[in-house]
């Protein structure tokens, strides 16, 4: 039997796309699905997915766990495990639409949960760390169960197939979000199951990524020292953990995180002011194992905003544009035009230069 993704490492080429409304205006998933159509050739039908922010306003205080189950057995085992750890306020099957391009669907369920208060107190962790450990535990230890989304008021939807088919399959036209990101995948090997599709998420961070990073194992072996387990062996997974580690645990700002993972070259640092030099040299010394090399363009989604970033040599295409209160980002301008034909301020961010978009205060 051929190996499943996670048992082997599969390099991929990809298409990515995102749209965000700075005023928090809600958009259905239709536009973001359309943006993936002109980039069809960037995928090969072996993976597609979306992340939407602000989609569960009625349950916004609960962690929304989206879980794939191989069968009823793995579901039972996982639910048994969850029962002791979290309060489940609602659970349901994620509604899907039969779509010709999407086959071999696992059981796909959604749970809105909160940490069990006494267990949380006993663990001496904050609730994010508590949930993160549960997610990693399930993904590492419960065979056939895989949590693929775990943030509050956001959700990831992904499958093996072309992204436009995946979007229709998950009925994204029925969800409304202030920010959408999308991913189409061109893996060089058959992933074998749906967990390998993207976006990859942890808590409310989600990442879509195009590239194949050459620093993968250096990054993985470093980040695994801090309790993360890279079960999928994908770049996106390790980048997500790096983002979580730097932003949530080390309390870096987004700009600072960009200076770590796409660190400026020493020759560039030499040209900065003394104050900047000191900080950048500090990052390159302390977080040197989190420098990500090789081609990547990523869009990191989080509650209230997103960040786009290219590797420091800009070895992957990435275009940004604006229209009204919206910011649009994609691998190709064609994808942006599919969403907003009259998009303005088309720009090509330089390698290592982060594009950070935040919603206006109180807009989400």
């Amino acid at each position, binding site marked *: 039997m051929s190996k499943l993704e996670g048992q082997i490492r599969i390099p991929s080429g990809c298409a990515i796309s995102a749209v965000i409304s700075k005023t928090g205006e809600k958009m259905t998933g239709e536009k973001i699905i359309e943006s993936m159509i002109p980039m069809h050739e960037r995928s090969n039908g072996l993976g597609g997915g979306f992340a939407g922010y602000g989609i569960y306003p009625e349950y916004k205080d609960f962690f929304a766990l989206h879980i794939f189950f191989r069968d009823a057995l793995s579901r039972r085992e996982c639910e048994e495990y969850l029962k002791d750890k979290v309060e489940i306020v609602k659970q349901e099957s994620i509604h899907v639409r039969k779509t010709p391009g999407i086959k071999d669907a696992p059981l796909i369920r959604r749970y809105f949960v909160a940490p069990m208060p006494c267990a949380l107190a006993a663990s001496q962790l904050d609730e994010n760390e508590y949930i993160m450990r549960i997610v990693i535990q399930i993904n590492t230890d419960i065979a056939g169960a895989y949590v693929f989304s775990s943030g509050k008021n956001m959700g990831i939807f992904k499958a093996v197939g072309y992204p436009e088919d995946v979007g229709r399959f998950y009925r994204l036209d029925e969800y409304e979000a202030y920010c959408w990101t999308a991913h189409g995948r061109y893996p060089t090997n058959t992933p074998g199951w749906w967990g390998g599709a993207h976006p990859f998420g942890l808590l409310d961070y989600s990442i879509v990524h195009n590239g194949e990073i050459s620093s993968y194992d250096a990054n993985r072996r470093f980040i695994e020292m801090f309790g993360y387990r890279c079960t999928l062996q994908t770049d996106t997974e390790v980048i997500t953990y790096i983002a979580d580690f730097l932003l949530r645990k080390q309390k870096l700002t987004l700009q600072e995180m960009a200076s770590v993972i796409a660190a400026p070259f*020493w020759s560039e640092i030499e040209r900065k002011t003394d104050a900047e030099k000191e900080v950048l040299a500090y990052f390159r*010394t302390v977080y*040197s194992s989190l420098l*990500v090399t090789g081609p990547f363009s990523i869009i990191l989604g989080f509650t209230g905003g997103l960040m786009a970033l290219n590797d420091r*040599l800009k070895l992957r295409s990435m275009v940004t544009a604006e229209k009204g209160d919206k910011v649009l980002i994609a691998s190709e301008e064609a994808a942006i035009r599919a969403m907003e034909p009259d998009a303005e301020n088309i720009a090509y961010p330089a390698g290592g230069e982060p594009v950070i978009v935040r919603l206006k205060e109180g807009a989400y």
Partner: protein
Amino acid sequence: MKINYLSPEFEVVRNEDRCIKCLLCVKQCANGVYTYDETKQTIVIDETNCVNCQRCVALCPTRALKVRKNDCGLRENGNWSENTIREIFKQAGSGGILLSSMGNPEKYPVYWDKILINASQVTNPSIDPLREPMETRVFLGKKPPSMVRKEDGSIDCSLPPQLKLDVPVMFAAMSYGSVSYNVHKSLAKAAQALGTYYNSGEGGLHEDFYCYGENTVVQVASGRFGVHKNYLEAGAAIEIKMGQGAKPGIGGHLPGVKVGPDVSRTRMIPEGTDAISPAPHHDIYSIEDLRQLVISLKEATGYQKPIIVKVAAVHNIAAIASGIARSGADIIAIDGFRGGTGAAPTRIRDNVGIPIELALASVDRQLRDEGIRTNVSLIAGGSIRSSADVIKAIALGADACYIGTAALIALGCHLCRSCQKGKCNWGIATQVPELVERLDPEVGYQRLVNLITAWKREIKEMMGGMGINSIEALRGNRLMLRGVGLTQKELDILGIKHAGE
């Protein structure tokens, strides 16, 4: 007449047609292989003391000389090798411990040669070091566990002391005494020019070299030779030598013949006395004692210098390193069983210790498993022979490499493995003034700079091929390596996959 059981190991062949009787060979051979017979007007050759250092061959202006293995060997035997028999003859004659020098030459596996490096094809681009920046700078030292902000929100950029290396290769410890003044001068100047470090070794630091302090690691070994406050303060870092790959479990041994006035003053010992380091540090009988020495040295130097603890790669190296990583030390240097030496008992050199590749891989994994890899940096030494070995060591988990033998070869060493005799014809492992002056430190320094510059270029080419443009992204990046012809157990210890996987 006393029977000489040993026939000469080498045979010197002189081409009479080419020889112009310039007598350069007679002057050059400190081992006395050549003499000139005035009456017969001929060069007489006695190979008894020939070590095949190739000095005469290299200098002969008409290429009239050749040194080759003496084919008048013993009767072949699959069990009793000629070498074994010769060693028994020697011991039966002397009653002494056999001495050797340089690294273990026996046929143990060289894992470097069974590891292959990756390159990018199609799915990601290789990077061209001629056209794009390619970074080889590393910082060695303890890294803080988490970032701290000051009250105004800015980052507190203070760090424990770090060594900054422009290329991840340092010159390993070789003491003044075992090697010559001119070797030290060549190493010091080269380290300065290359933006890296050389290591004083355990024999103190000659007063002339204090000016290279910013590029010097000063060593504190069990003999404490030449150790005083100014010495500790002279270097950029202090290395506690717990062990050496060539002779784990025993101390250094400098024969009195090498202890002349200058060496005597630098080591702070009487002229002509053997400088024998105790096997253990007598203030370190356990790991908690090591911690006390680490802290003492830090106290003595105001916490301004990183402390390196150098250990030989032995069976339990991973646990030992884990203990050192919690001792307050900033850097661990691991020396594999192939590491060189100026003098070691042959049996120990050839039978004690383990390969650096396995030791390094185990240590790096252990420290990561325990979440303490950032407590220390790792330097791997003990036969790093080329830039490819450096790449492989870094991908296995080293922050940098030490080279000793390779540096000496750059200076002219021909690996005749006779350093303990003190008659190095290349002016390297000797204190005889007329031999020492054969190595011009200006030439030596330039050759070292050339070697490391060449390696740096090759490192950049290989990094670029892998699509990596900073050496830090290679550190511990074991997916970039594959094994060939290794057992599953070996692959598991190295933490790499087999080629084809």
